[in-house]
């Protein structure tokens, strides 16, 4: 019986020739990740309780991304505590206020195909974009990994999501993920692995694959994984073959279920509050006025997202405040280099510091009572971006940009 890519990664990490769904194993972790919210402030004490020694600083990544730039004294103290701890441990992979952890892992090629990656954040799954098995845990469990280098895993059943045809130019990876959520709902993959495949996936760039991997957590999944093909295989294939890490599932791999999706008739989509899976066509919501538009977060603030927004905003102006928070400073630099930034600024966009900010409900653009926002962030649960009565509509950067221009929810095809 063949194994899926997720099963092969677990087998290798556990030092076994094979594993099957529901097996429990102890596995050697290749990379452990945390940020200023889940990191030192929450784990330093546990690490001391467990003897105080880190298993391998080379395999630990820490980013300050939640509370920077600090909005108040409490934030400033968390940032300072994080920085002090990172220095005292001489961490080689410490990213201080330059972007969101998940995006940094991909940008710096710290996440590689076939790795087992664990992070103290639910969106750790984003690293599945390169074909890694990336899972989120809580802070205390991460602390035990930082000391032992190991974690326990129950082998998940794998669900294969296949996009069979070619994606129309007005659809983004976010629309692809919302198509899945619309059909299969927000809890279809609890405790499971979600693997993506098919011609429309093979054609995606790394930023787009990151969207699919990221949104697996909103499906309830343990991990989302995009097996390395196309540009990702070109970039990482040779090195992965040298290390012996798996790059693909076995030909006879057994999936719990395979879901096929066709994209030809899918319109641009919007997830309406309060659920990520209440998904409808943007065109059906054209009577809904918005107060603000926000482009940012680990899933919606990449260089690709900013370029997509600029496609729509070129030569046009936003009618409502349009905030753009690049996921990392590298994304901002790229947007400057390729002219994207000028287009956004000319359209009236406000550029913010890189980081999690408003997506995590922390700072830099929180929503007030009943304020209505269309945005590329990760989630729309009430209170996610501020007040519990604020309304968060999730959409692709194309749809967010189009809506910013008109001041109401708008199908981006009006401007393409």
């Amino acid at each position, binding site marked *: 019986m063949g194994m899926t890519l997720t099963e092969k990664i677990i087998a290798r990490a556990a030092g076994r020739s094979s594993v099957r769904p529901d097996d429990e194993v102890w596995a050697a972790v290749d990379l452990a990740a945390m940020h200023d919210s889940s990191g030192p402030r929450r784990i330093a004490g546990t690490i001391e309780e*467990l003897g105080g020694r880190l298993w391998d600083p080379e395999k630990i990544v820490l980013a300050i991304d939640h509370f920077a730039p600090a909005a108040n004294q409490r934030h400033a103290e968390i940032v300072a505590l994080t920085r002090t701890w990172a220095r005292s441990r001489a961490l080689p992979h410490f990213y201080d206020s330059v972007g969101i952890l998940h995006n940094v892992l991909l940008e710096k090629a710290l996440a590689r195909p076939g790795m087992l990656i664990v992070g103290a*954040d639910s969106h750790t799954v984003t690293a599945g974009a390169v074909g890694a098995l990336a899972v989120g*845990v809580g802070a205390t469990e991460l602390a035990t990994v930082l000391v032992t280098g190991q974690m326990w895993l129950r082998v998940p059943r794998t669900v294969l999501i296949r996009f069979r045809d070619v994606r129309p130019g007005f659809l983004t990876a976010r629309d692809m993920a919302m198509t899945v959520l619309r059909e299969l709902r927000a809890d279809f993959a609890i405790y499971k692995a979600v693997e993506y495949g098919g011609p429309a996936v093979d054609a995606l760039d790394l930023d787009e694959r990151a969207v699919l991997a990221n949104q697996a957590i909103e499906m309830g999944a343990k991990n989302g994984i995009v097996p390395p093909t196309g540009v990702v295989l070109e970039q990482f294939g040779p090195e992965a073959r040298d290390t012996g890490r798996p790059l693909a599932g076995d030909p006879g791999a057994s999936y719990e279920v395979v879901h096929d999706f066709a994209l030809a008739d899918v319109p641009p989509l919007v997830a309406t509050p309060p659920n990520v899976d209440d998904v409808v066509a943007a065109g059906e919501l054209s009577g809904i006025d918005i107060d603000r538009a926000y482009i940012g977060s680990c899933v919606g603030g990449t260089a690709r997202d900013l370029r997509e927004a600029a496609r729509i905003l070129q030569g046009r102006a936003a009618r409502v405040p349009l905030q753009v928070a690049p996921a990392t400073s590298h994304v901002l630099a790229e947007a400057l280099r390729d002219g994207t930034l000028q287009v956004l600024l000319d359209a009236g966009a406000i550029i913010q510091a890189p980081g999690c900010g408003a997506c995590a409900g922390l700072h830099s653009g929180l929503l007030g009572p009943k304020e209505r926002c269309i945005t590329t962030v990760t989630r729309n649960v009430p209170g996610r971006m501020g007040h519990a009565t604020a309304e968060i509509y999730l959409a692709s950067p194309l749809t967010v940009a189009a809506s910013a221009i008109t001041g109401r929810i708008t199908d981006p095809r009006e401007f393409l």
Partner: protein
Amino acid sequence: MRTYEGRAWVFGDHVSTDQILPGKFLDRPMAEVGHYAMAGLDEGFARRVRPGDFIVAGANFGCGSSREAAVIALQQAGVAAVIARSFGRIFFRNAINNGFPAAVIAQTARIAPGDPLRLNLEARVLTDLRSGETFPLQSLTGISQQILEAGGIVRFTRARLEARG
């Protein structure tokens, strides 16, 4: 493993950790988060819940963010256990890692707000003392059971490290 008795606080499906402990309280020290338990759904919950009470919810309780403070907040507020039809996996893992009972039963809809409940973790059964109905708890398996029995993942890990020498 012990028996708990308390009242049921009933919530629906897909209760997110963003609602159990909203992001605006993430900058608080862990010792204070209990004041904000369930604040995203019911700001008065932390004041009104009595030690030993239960949260009873539908599917996917604790979905979303990995924030461990969501589990800690419920523990600090005095919640004895969460009973749900299913859990978000990170919340479930965090609960076990902190020695906090998170139990799965199939028929959560049969429990009404305010029902007196008895949870017997040894016999793995939940009893609704109003209706007299009993509900078997889905079993934990292997390693997760060992971690819960050890009282959480820190104690469990310390024992593993000592065994390794």
